[in-house]
C-alpha cells in the first residue's frame, strides 16, 4: 500500500541531495575511470592520439607473458609474508600481550607494547623502504650484525641478489604488517568472555592449549577479516617493491602492480597495462565480495 497524503515520505526524498557531492566525486574519480580502463584494455595505445581497438589481443598476450606469470607467482609468495606470517605472529603476540602482559603488568604496559608494534604501520611505506634498503644493503647493518655475531658466512647481497631479493622484501612486509594484525586481534580478544578461560583453566588446560582451543576459534571473525584484507593488500602491493628493488633484480620481485605501472608510464603500452589492471581488479573484486558478504552476515548476527 503506498503512503499517500503525508509529509514524512516526501521529506525523506530531500535527503538524496546530500549524496550528490559524494556520488559525483565517486563517479568522476572511481567509476568512470574504472570503465575507461576496462575499455582501454581492449585497445592498443601509446597515450597520444587515439586508441586502436584490438579486441582480446592484450589478454591473449598476457597468457604467454613470462613477466606477467612471474609477477603472479611472486604475489603468491608475498601472500606468505603479507598474510600468513603476520597473522600467526599477530595471534601469538596478541594472546601474550592481552593475557599475560596485561594481567601481570597492567594495561599501560600492554598498551605501550601494542603501540610499539604498531609503529611500522604508520610510516609511509616508501620511507620504510628507504630505511630497510639501507639496512639490507651489502655494506649495511644486517651484514654487519651477522659478521659481528660470527655468522659472517651468511652475509649476502640481500637486495641485489635475485635469490634473496624476494625474501628481503618479504621481511620488510612482515615488519610492517604484524602491527595491523596485532591491533585487530587484541581488540577482538577484549570481547571474549574471560569466564571461558577460567573454565578451561579449571579443566586443566595450559596456556598453549587455551590459545588453540579457545582463543583462535573465538577470534575466527577477526582472523577472517584480517586474512581477507591482507590478501587484498597482497594483490595490490606496490610501494615496497618500487622503493627497495624496483621489481628486480632480473624481475625477481616483480608484482602485477609494478608491471602495470611499468607499462603505463615507461613503455607506454597503455592498453596492455590496462588489461593487467583489469585482471588485478577482477581478482580483488572476488575477494572483496567475499569480504563484504561476510561483514553483512556478521552484522546480521549482531
Amino acid at each position: 500500500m503506498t503512503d499517500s497524503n503525508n509529509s514524512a515520505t516526501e521529506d525523506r526524498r530531500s535527503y538524496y541531495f546530500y549524496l550528490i557531492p559524494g556520488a559525483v566525486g565517486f563517479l568522476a574519480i572511481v567509476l568512470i575511470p574504472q570503465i575507461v580502463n576496462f575499455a582501454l584494455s581492449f585497445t592498443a595505445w601509446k597515450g597520444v592520439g587515439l586508441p586502436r581497438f584490438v579486441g582480446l589481443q592484450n589478454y591473449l598476450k598476457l597468457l604467454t607473458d613470462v613477466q606477467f606469470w612471474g609477477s603472479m607467482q611472486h604475489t603468491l609468495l608475498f601472500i606468505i609474508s603479507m598474510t600468513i606470517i603476520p597473522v600467526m605472529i599477530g595471534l601469538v603476540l596478541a594472546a601474550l600481550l592481552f593475557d599475560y602482559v596485561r594481567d601481570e603488568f597492567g594495561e599501560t604496559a600492554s598498551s605501550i607494547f601494542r603501540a610499539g608494534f604498531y609503529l611500522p604501520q604508520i610510516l609511509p611505506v616508501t620511507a620504510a623502504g628507504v630505511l630497510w634498503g639501507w639496512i639490507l644493503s651489502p655494506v649495511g647493518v644486517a651484514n654487519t650484525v651477522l659478521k659481528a655475531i660470527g655468522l659472517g658466512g651468511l652475509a649476502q647481497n640481500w637486495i641485489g641478489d635475485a635469490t634473496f631479493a624476494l625474501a628481503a622484501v618479504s621481511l620488510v612486509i612482515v615488519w610492517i604488517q604484524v602491527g595491523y594484525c596485532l591491533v585487530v586481534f587484541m581488540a577482538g580478544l577484549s570481547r571474549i568472555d574471560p569466564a571461558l578461560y577460567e573454565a578451561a583453566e579449571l579443566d586443566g588446560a595450559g596456556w598453549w592449549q587455551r590459545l588453540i582451543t579457545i582463543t583462535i576459534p573465538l577470534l575466527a571473525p577477526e582472523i577472517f577479516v584480517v586474512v581477507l584484507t591482507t590478501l587484498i593488500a597482497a594483490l595490490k602491493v606496490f610501494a615496497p617493491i618500487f622503493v627497495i628493488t624496483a621489481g628486480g633484480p632480473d624481475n625477481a620481485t616483480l608484482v602485477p602492480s609494478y608491471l602495470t605501472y611499468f607499462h603505463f608510464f615507461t613503455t607506454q603500452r597503455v592498453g596492455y597495462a590496462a588489461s593487467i589492471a583489469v585482471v588485478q581488479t577482477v581478482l580483488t573484486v572476488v575477494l572483496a565480495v567475499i569480504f563484504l558478504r561476510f561483514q553483512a552476515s556478521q552484522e546480521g548476527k549482531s
Partner: protein
Amino acid sequence: MSDATLTTAPAASGTDDTDYNRPRRSPFRWLVLLLVTFMLLLTLFPFLLAIVNAIKSGVDYARNGPLSIPTSLDFSALVYFWNLSDFGRKLANSTIISLAVSLLGVLISLLNAYAIGIGRVKGSRIFLVVLLLGIMVPQESIVYPLYYMAKATGLYDSQLAVIIVFAVLQSAFGTYLLTSVLRSFPKEIIEAAEMDGANRWQVLWQVVVPVLRPSLMVVGTFFFIWTWNEFLIPLVMLVSNNNQTVAVAMGLTRGQNMSDPTFQAAASLLGIAPTLIFFLIFQRTLTRGVVVGAVK
C-alpha cells in the same frame, strides 16, 4: 579461628591483594616479558638505527660501523639530505595535501553518512557496497584515466588534483564508518529538533555535528595519515620536484647516493620522523578509532 595460609612462598613485590589462594607467581611471566620485549626491540631496532646513524659523521661511521654510538653529533648528513631534496617544501606539500584531504574527505563522508545513516534513503546498501568495492580495487585500475583527465583539464602536476582524488577515495571509507555511527544516533533528538522547527540542514550542523565531533576527529586524523603515506597517485600526478610529497620523495631516493650510509640513514629518519611524531601526539585518538574497528 585462624586459617592456615595457602601460600608457601612470600608474595612477589608489587601485588595489591594478599596472596591467599593465588598460585605462586610463576617465573614464567618474566620469560614472557623478556620475549615480548625482545620482539619489540627487534621491531623498533630500525628506528634506533636510523636515529643513531643520521647524526653520525661519515668518518665516524666508516671507522666504527653502524652499531656504534656516535662519538660526536654531526648533523651534516641531515642537512645535506634536507637541502638536496628540498625537504622543507616536501613537508609543506604533504601537510597541505593531507590537511585538505582530511577536511574535504570528512565533509563528503559526513554528507553521505547523514543521508544514509539518518535519512535512511532507499538504495543505501547498494551505495555503500559500491563505495567500498570502489576503493578496495587496485589504484592501478584508475590511475591512467585520472592521469589523462588531469592533463586534459590542466590540473596535472597540481596539488588540487591529488586533493580531489584522495578526498573522494578516503571518503568512501569515511562514509562507511560514519554511517554506522550515525545509524545509532538517537532518533528522538533529531525528531525533537524537527519539531522545534529545524530543517534538515540545520539539524545536521546544529544538532548532529556537535555531538558527532569526536568521531569526526578520529576519521579526520586517519585521513591525514593515510593521505600522507599515499604513493602511487602522487607519484604519477605530481611530477615536478616542487610539488612532490614526502612519500614520493622517499620513493625516489632509492638509487641516490647509495654508497653514502649516513645519507641513507638521514633520509630514512627524515622520512619517518613526521608521521612518527604525529602518531605519538595523536596516539589517543588513533587507538580509540582503531579499537572501534576503523582499520584500513
